[in-house]
């Protein structure tokens, strides 16, 4: 074996192992993050965490019940605002669209998807907080809802497009109108995929902090209704982690574990169950 060949072969082995190392580092980052959070946050998770309000500043103990409820309320608002608009918009792009408008909508959706979340916060601030003159759950929900729309829209469109032609033709042949065909044949056939997109979009905004900082703001107490500032898990993690108290730091870890658990479990369940098998052959 010539020296040149030996060199090429060893370069081959070295570089290929390096790519494997890159993959290993990337993948182990997730396990490291998860493990570190369980290690640090697990021991401070208690029943109180889920049922009590935050303790007064400086005192130990207390929980984050209001932040958990706040996050759920924000997600509810985000779903109510984002899902119908995204879903119907997706139906339009896949089923009814002409030429110019769908192109424009598709391009805008991709653009909106890339807009930094903090800019969405400014938008909600300008649209809701400024006219109302105070922070509110509503403003936070709108900020998150606007972020949900483009994700659901693009996802719905792509799953609707995957529904085979034969199903549509079959329903036309039975005498259905276009909207009957869409509502009772195409949408049910694509429902799993659409559901996946909706849940993943909600899981994504559940962890968003930046757009909530000056919309939902924060609250040390319960926030009745939708018209007052509310606490939320991501914001309270930020506040507690950057705060000066040792006890706050411990609670930030616990809250981080809860938030990460929520997001990861949703992601894993949705990806594992909803995407497995569809009502029709995927091409």
């Amino acid at each position: 074996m010539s020296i040149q060949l030996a060199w090429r072969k060893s370069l081959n082995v070295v570089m290929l192992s390096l790519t494997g190392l890159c993959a290993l580092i990337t993948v182990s980052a997730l396990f490291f993050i998860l493990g570190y959070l369980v290690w640090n946050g697990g021991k401070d998770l208690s029943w109180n965490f889920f049922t009590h309000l935050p303790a007064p500043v400086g005192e130990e103990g207390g929980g984050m019940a209001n932040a958990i409820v706040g996050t759920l309320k924000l997600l509810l608002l985000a779903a109510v605002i984002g899902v119908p608009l995204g879903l119907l918009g997706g139906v339009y792009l896949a089923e009814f669209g002409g030429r110019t408008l769908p192109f424009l909508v598709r391009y805008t959706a991709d653009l909106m998807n890339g807009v930094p979340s903090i800019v969405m916060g400014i938008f909600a601030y300008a649209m809701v907080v400024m006219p109302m003159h105070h922070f509110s759950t509503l403003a936070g929900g709108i900020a998150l809802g606007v972020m949900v729309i483009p994700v659901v829209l693009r996802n719905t469109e792509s799953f609707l497009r995957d529904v085979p032609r034969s199903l549509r033709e079959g329903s036309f042949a039975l005498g259905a109108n276009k909207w009957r065909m869409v509502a009772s044949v195409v949408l049910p056939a694509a429902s799993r995929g659409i559901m996946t997109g909706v849940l993943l979009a909600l899981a994504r905004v559940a962890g968003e902090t930046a757009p909530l900082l000056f919309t939902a703001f924060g609250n040390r107490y319960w926030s009745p209704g939708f018209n007052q500032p509310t606490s939320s898990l991501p914001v309270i993690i930020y506040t507690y982690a950057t705060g000066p108290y040792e006890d706050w730091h411990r609670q930030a870890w616990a809250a981080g574990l809860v938030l990460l658990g929520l997001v990861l479990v949703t992601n894993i369940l949705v990806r594992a169950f909803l995407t497995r098998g569809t009502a029709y052959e995927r091409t």
Partner: protein
Amino acid sequence: MATTPNAVTPADVPRNTRTLPRRWAGADEIAHLITMIAAGALLLIAVLLVYQLWVLSAESRHKFGWSFFVGTTWDPVSGDFGALPFIYGTLVTSAVALCIAVPLGVGAAIFLAELAPPKLSSSLTFVSDLLAAVPSVIYGLLGVFLLVPLMRTTIQPALKDVLGFLPIFQGPSYGIGFLTAGIVLAIMIVPFVLSVSREVLLAVPRDQREAALALGATKWESTWKVVVPAARIGIFGSVFLALARALGETMAVTMVIGNNPRISASLFSPGYSIASVLANEFSEATGNLYLSALIELGLVLFLLTFVLNGLARLLILITTSRGSGVLPT
């Protein structure tokens, strides 16, 4: 078709005998209209977003003009606002992040697309997708309590020992600063580089690889000299996409960059970024000019990511449309 006696035109059907499907024909129009309004709502939101950013930043734009971008003072008390330290911080942290994330992400993508057996490849991609789903504030949490002390006690002194002659690795080790923020950002954007690069690598036709191997190339040579160049444009696209993410990333950066508006050649020095100053000061901005200056920063951030995203999508589209890949969303 005049010879088909059974052909019935809509006009022939008497109104009172309309069958069920025909009664619903008008519903098609209604459904079309409703869905069109929903799709139009997104356009309306986008237009409103740009409009609000433009109008609300008017005061600052008129007062400072272009000097907003070169001014280095940020003084809310005297009403003097210059954005350069923030723009600098955003660009420097993103550059550091790209230096780490691009080799790592592209390397991992090569492994997943070219070497790993399909089952391993898909499960590793799944893990990488999960990594992309981890909320930014969680990265910030780990950054504050794990990476910052580690940087202060170990990594920064070590870098100073070895590469201390470079101006970027000089100055005291605070732990916080551009370098720390860049590293956190890098971990956050690797999944984006990885998934898009993998997609474009897989889109390169199989016969290209086989031809190279048949000519006697090693696996690495076929990958590096044939497959990667063929996917080059798409990989650039993935880099732009990741860059757009890094520029707009807020929480993790805010928690570790140090929040100090100054320009320094040293990566160890604390700094500030556009997104961080928005996160920290927006809710307590007093006075219209202050708020307007912050919103102008938001406008700058919006325009930057707008251009980068557009460019990225174009590049990815060019590469994947040549092969069989799909445009990742």
